């Protein structure tokens, strides 16, 4: 069994992470799942959340949303629509986005337009993930 995983995290704009790692936790659309060396081949869609990977004892976090994750032959490939490391995140902006989304959610009854509701929920989830990742970076 190989001891390590090769992780590649790419977005349409750039390759965000390319590293040898010991463990990856991926925010799948059906929930978070962890990947260790020797994992069975897997293809999953990505939700909104935090990709966490561990190298030795160091943990790294990346905020990601939308896309796919593939695990095959101890290679983890994550194709995200958006992915940001703590250094990329503008925390103040994320906080404003959170407040905006919360305001929008509070301001309307659940019966009102479904799309706007979903959109606001997604915006909120993204903002919260960013804030969380940003705070880990400190």
């Amino acid at each position: 069994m190989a001891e390590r995983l090769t992780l590649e995290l790419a977005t349409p704009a750039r390759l965000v992470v390319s590293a040898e790692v010991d463990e990856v936790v991926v925010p799948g659309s059906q929930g978070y799942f962890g990947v260790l060396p020797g994992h069975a081949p897997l293809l999953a869609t990505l939700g909104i959340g935090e990709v966490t990977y561990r190298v030795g004892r160091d943990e790294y976090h990346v905020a990601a949303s939308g896309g796919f994750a593939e695990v095959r032959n101890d290679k983890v490939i994550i194709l995200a629509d958006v992915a940001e490391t703590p250094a990329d995140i503008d925390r103040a902006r994320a906080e404003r986005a959170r407040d905006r989304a919360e305001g929008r959610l509070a301001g309307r009854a659940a019966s009102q337009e479904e799309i706007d509701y979903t959109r606001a929920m997604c915006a909120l989830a993204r903002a919260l993930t960013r804030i969380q990742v940003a705070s880990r970076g400190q």
Partner: protein
Amino acid sequence: MATLRDIQRRIRSVQSTQKITRAMKLVAAAKLRRAQERILSARPYASKMAELLSNLVSGAEDAGHPLLEQREGPRRQIVIITADRGLAGAFNSNIIRRANELIRGSSSAEITLVVVGRKARDFFRRRTYTIRRDLVAFWDRLNYTHAKDLADYFMQQFLDHEVDEVVLLYNEFRSVVAQRPVRVQLLPIPHAETGGGEGTPAEQVDYIYEPSPEAILGDLLPRHVRMQVWRALMESAAGEQGARMTAMEAASKNAKDIIGILTIQYNKARQEKITKELLDIVGGAEALKQGAEA
């Protein structure tokens, strides 16, 4: 016969033109580098995506996704991608010529256009075409969102049965000195692209799918379309700078040649003038001498 002053004026004019073309060349080179980096950094995502797609289509039992649906309908949408500015050699006119050929050559009863870049818009707006959408003056701040908006618009139209086919026409960036107009069918997604046509026979991997293969495919296909549009935009952006660089290089060289020719002309004219003056003086002195002897 041009006077000395005229020639000098022309030399100066050509010199200032040369300064401009040189500066434009340098700017284009800098922009080109950035555009190339962008293409390179998108490559991992794009190649991985293609691989996933072919794996998945062979994995999913029934690839009957609406975006794959081949229709017989006649309504074709042509997306014409040019630059906003000229002075880039045949970069824009090549695309426009190809577009014209395509429009004339196709039997489609109903053609609609989407024009990207000011050159395409200005050209086709003056003619009797149905332009559904345009996108101009964005090249300097090109990013993925532009591609996503465009691609989502195409898919929406396709799924709503507004159009039956979407074709992209853009300059492919082959190298700094070579751009080639290419035509790519965007929608419906051609089977060749999903059939593992990348040369490597897609080895059958027994994946755990989360959720189902069909759901993942449904997620993947729109992204594939967006990526295609994104690639077209990036290639065109890089190609534009490459074409401009080459054009300006040629223009600078041309200016140098002209300055050389004009300088020779100037020197000849100057020599002539001096000779003439000398003759006058000699002739005058001779006349005076003869007058004194007489």
